[in-house]
């Protein structure tokens, strides 16, 4: 740990704690997931940076959307996202969640994921390599430092819009709204 980091720890310990213990919950929602095992295992060892897979969304603060999201998965993705404790960060993997990617004309995959849940960072690639995942993590660190990884705040703020979009695609959702009281002005 160099001095620079030490001062950061004193200045903003919360941010630092979030940065260096990113416990990832990930859906095997597609191709991107094939690069998660290498990333967290011996060749690349993401645990060096505190990135480990979390067993349940309740333990996690990083949500990796590892590829295209089918309608059926979207339901589970939203559920999982809402279960995660705040602050939480989301990263979209590869082309598909950005703009549909390979499956831009599929009837069962949604095209732009950020219409349904907030995304803090996107990684280019089909699918991103482990190195790209590392760079995305450092990118996320920067965003956390600058308070720009505020997806969960945006979700709270625009929840009515998100919920409306979710219901437009999924139909009636079987769980109650997460933030009942906060309505958009």
């Amino acid at each position, binding site marked *: 740990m160099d001095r620079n980091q030490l001062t950061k720890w004193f200045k903003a310990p919360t941010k630092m704690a979030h940065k260096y213990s990113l416990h990832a919950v990930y859906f095997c929602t597609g191709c991107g997931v094939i690069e998660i095992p290498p990333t967290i295992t011996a060749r690349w060892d993401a645990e060096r940076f505190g990135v480990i897979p979390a067993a*349940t969304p309740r*333990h996690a603060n990083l949500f990796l959307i590892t590829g295209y999201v089918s309608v059926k998965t979207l339901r589970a993705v939203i559920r999982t996202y809402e279960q995660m404790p705040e602050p939480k960060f989301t990263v979209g993997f590869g082309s598909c969640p950005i703009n549909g990617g390979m499956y831009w004309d599929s009837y069962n995959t949604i095209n732009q994921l950020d219409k349904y849940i907030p995304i803090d960072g996107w990684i280019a690639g089909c699918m991103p390599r482990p190195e790209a995942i590392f760079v995305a993590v450092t990118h996320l660190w920067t965003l956390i430092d600058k308070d720009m990884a505020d997806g969960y705040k945006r979700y709270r703020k625009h929840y009515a819009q998100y919920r409306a979009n979710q219901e437009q695609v999924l139909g009636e959702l079987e769980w109650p709204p997460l933030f009942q009281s906060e309505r958009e002005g």
Partner: protein
Amino acid sequence: MRILWLVLSPLIALAVGLFFLGLSRRVMARIHWRYGPPLYQPLIEIFRYFTQKGSSHGVLFGLGIVLSLAGSIVVILFLPFGGICSMSGSGGMLVVLYMMLLAPLGIALSGGEAANPNASIGISRKLMLALGYELPFLLIVLAIMTHYDTISLVDIVSAQRETASAFASFPLVLSGIAYLLILPAMLGMRPFEVVHAPQEISSGPIAEYSGPYLGLVTIQHALTTFIGISLFVNLVWGGAGNPFVFFLKMLVVLAFGLFVNAAFPRLRVEQAVRYLWRWPTLIAFVGLILVVTLGR
């Protein structure tokens, strides 16, 4: 002075426990051919948990954790740490045995509140596993207590220091071996990692904890690790005269646990119980009988 120790010893236990958690991740990583996280990683994580927003599932949810934490702290107070023992009452061993049951009970109470099927499966597994290792453990403790003719942990330690550690004395060596065999189960390590089993039941009892609750559970985990190892060192490896040697002994025990952890897959719960009730129980039982028949 005693009051100072009362405050300090749980803190020391926590520090050592967290260090062990960090170290075990490092060691496991090495066996996995990788570097692993920094040693202070568990600290960061606990800190992170406490700054997150947790969601509660009822009063018992929080209370249960506190209960189990309290149980663990009480146990720690009774455990000698290399000559330091804040509560060296004569009934030490019995209190420890009782209080050790509190920790899983608290978690069970709290986790049961969460209404997650994984959690309830985990809890039932935990109870079954406890059933599995408690029997040989009691036999071992019985043998040791009979052998040294005392129920005070401090006395047991000092008795071992006078002669030789339990491992090195003839009838008790069987109990020692039995203890070694159930140690991974008590520490919740593989092949007995059936309770949490992230790949099977998504961390089982702790599946529903988030934020500060998870932080408390992690602290509880660190304390449990400390208790499990220090109990072993105290009971069968003669404790130590000063904290440093004691710590070194604990390290060795941890390393043994980690090697086993790295070398085996997880067993099914009934396999685990069957295993625990077979060899360790048998050895512990024989040990007890020998101790009783041979006398002192």
